[in-house]
């Protein structure tokens, strides 16, 4: 009886196993695959209306040093595919590559400025549709071609993508840079009512790659780029809980720096049928250096004067950025529209971009110093 059971079960198992194992698509050995470290997007204008797409992929190459398989050297190369549609670029790329590329480990997505100006829709659509993609990769716009950015050699790194990932990951420590700059955060802000994506802008400077500002979008198209200093204040107003340095300077010897954490609150109401926004900023921070003001750690009124001066400076800069937004960028890059949409109702066919640009925006800044460090080398007041 027991023997019979085995006689049935074993062939049954073989049949079941072969049923599932046969005809498996896309299964390949590791040696035949290429891991993608970074993905880029370029466009080339053929005629003013039509473009050809080019998608460079930065892929790793693992090669044993002088035939030794244990000491593997990792380097990278860029494989480019071009085509009239984004799908065709895959065909074109495969016709030049010796291996199959697998997605899912991308560290960065780099879109060139011209591609972003043409519109993010095509590239984001193909990225969003693909379920294998890594959603926690960083997203950035670059000057020039994405291909050049990806093939740029950075010393000590197998590929520039690894460097750019670290660059974007740690930028939030200073200059009020936002923390959420992954591709998921682009999904949550692109074509979303009352907000426009603001994306880090990187460029090469000599041998270095650096963040040089923010790319500003309107209706999914890049319309402007803010420089590094403006981006600082723009990000401060756009995001909650960011940190950066505010400095007051008299000359190159006398200055004071405050490392501040920000808290932001936005209120919106309507005055005479027009929107009115109030951005309340609260900066809390520590004085990291001060060779400018006397006695601010001892004297209450001096401290208050210092705080007021910092606040004034932040206010002045913020107002100039708001002015620039209204006259130069002409897009709601602060994402104020979403506050209005959250108060006055969604999906009601209101052009929040226009409403925000027509609105009046107030900025209130409050600064408080929490920490003075362990001491001070400022000159004593008795020397005066």
């Amino acid at each position, binding site marked *: 009886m027991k023997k019979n059971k085995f006689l049935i079960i074993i062939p049954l198992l073989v049949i079941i196993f072969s049923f599932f194992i046969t005809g498996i698509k896309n299964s390949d050995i590791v040696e035949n695959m290429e891991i993608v470290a970074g993905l880029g997007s370029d466009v080339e204008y053929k005629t003013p209306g039509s473009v050809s797409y080019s998608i460079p992929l930065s892929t790793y190459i693992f090669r044993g040093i002088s035939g030794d398989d244990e000491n593997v050297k990792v380097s990278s190369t860029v494989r480019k595919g071009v085509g009239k549609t984004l799908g065709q670029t895959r065909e074109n790329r495969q016709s030049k590559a010796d291996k199959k590329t697998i997605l899912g*480990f991308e560290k960065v997505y780099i879109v060139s400025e011209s591609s972003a100006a043409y519109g993010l829709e095509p590239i984001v659509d193909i990225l969003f549709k693909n*379920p294998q993609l890594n959603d926690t990769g960083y997203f950035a716009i670059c000057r020039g071609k994405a291909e050049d950015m990806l093939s740029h050699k950075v010393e000590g790194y197998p590929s520039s993508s690894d460097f750019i990932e670290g660059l974007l990951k740690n930028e939030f420590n200073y200059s009020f840079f936002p923390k959420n700059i992954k591709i998921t955060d682009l999904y949550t802000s692109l074509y979303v009512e009352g907000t426009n994506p603001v994306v880090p802008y990187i460029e090469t400077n000599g041998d270095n790659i650096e963040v040089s500002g923010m790319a500003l979008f309107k209706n999914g198209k890049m319309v402007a780029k803010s420089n590094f200093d403006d981006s600082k204040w723009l990000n401060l107003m756009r995001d909650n809980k960011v940190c950066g340095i505010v400095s007051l300077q008299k000359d190159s010897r006398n200055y004071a720096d405050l490392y501040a954490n920000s808290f932001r609150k936005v209120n919106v109401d309507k005055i005479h049928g027009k929107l009115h926004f109030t951005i309340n900023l609260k900066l809390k921070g520590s004085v990291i250096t001060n060779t400018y003001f006397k006695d601010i750690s001892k004297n209450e009124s001096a401290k208050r004067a210092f705080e007021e001066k910092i606040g004034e400076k932040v206010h002045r800069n913020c107002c100039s950025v708001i002015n620039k937004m209204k006259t130069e960028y002409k897009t709601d890059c602060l994402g104020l529209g979403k506050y209005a949409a959250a108060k006055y109702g969604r999906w009601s066919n209101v052009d929040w971009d226009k409403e925000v640009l027509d609105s009046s925006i107030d900025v209130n800044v409050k600064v408080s110093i929490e920490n003075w460090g362990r001491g001070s080398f400022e000159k004593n007041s008795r020397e005066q």
Partner: protein
Amino acid sequence: MQNSSESKITSYQLLCILTGTAIGIGLMDLPNQVTEIAKQNGWVSVIIGGIYPLYIVYIADILQNKFPDENILQLSRKFLGKVFGNLLNLLFMFNFILYTTTVASGLTILLSTFIMYFMSPIKLLVFIVSLGAISSYSGLRPLANINELIFVFTIVVALIPLVALGRGKLLNVLPLFDSSVESLFKASVESCFSYGGIEIIFLFYPLVSDREKFKSYMLKGVLFLIILYSSLTFLTIYYCGIDLIKKSFWSILIATKSIEIPIINNFRFIFMFLWSIVNFKTISNSYFASVFILKDMFKKLSIKKLSVILFPFIVLMSSNYINEEARRTFLKFIVPKYTLFNIVFLTVICLIGLLKKDGLNEEK
């Protein structure tokens, strides 16, 4: 085999079966369905939709008090005559066939989209349905044990999207209650498919060993469902906003995909693994319920035989809507009608039961 059908289960196990049958693939696109109509207040609609399961439990409690030893199938035959009663039972059975096939095909689509793209969907479907058939083959007691175990899994899976709490914006769920009451109720009808499946308690309440706890456990189960569904919907809206929900087919997945864990490069596989376990149990439960009703009609055949016989039919039916578009159109068409049928059928049985004074004593 007779033992397995006669064996008793506890109220807690029935709670697990109740939640286990309801929580399925429908949850994945629940935010899509409700936000389409009720916008950012979709989660309120999900709570309102909870009236349906509460009502079902209320009826079940009445019937259980009055006729503790007869399930809905026997009652419908008793009240409505053998032919008409059996016909309605058959219709009631198609409820569970519907759940089995749509969840199986839905899970197949989900898995073949996200992780099992190397396998042909139909093979995956055969495998998924066969798991349902095997657990149904083994009878009620093992099924109850499976449900008890996976209930814990479900809680773990439900906790994962909580990470979105730290990343979302309260702004996304504002303004509160600006949608009209009408649209809120309209959207709550859409959430019925995700609550569907709890009708299974009408089949098993005579088998519960601790009857005095039945009502409280069932209410707890339904409450768990309502809280789980509404909080997940709320979290999804809170994290993505209604504009992104519209763009994604399985919006709940967006929040979970953004999770970053050191070492693990892609959290998707872990979540999908847990999620398919949760769904296998849903399929098993509905499969067993269908077999259970068939067994009630064809007394000669055993549950084991029926489980095997039903297998090719289920595979065939599921493969009909193995693309998402066809599946959703079909569901949109059939679910409101079936929900209405369930309400009418169960209410009628309950009313007749109430009108028959002292149904218990009459029998004796």
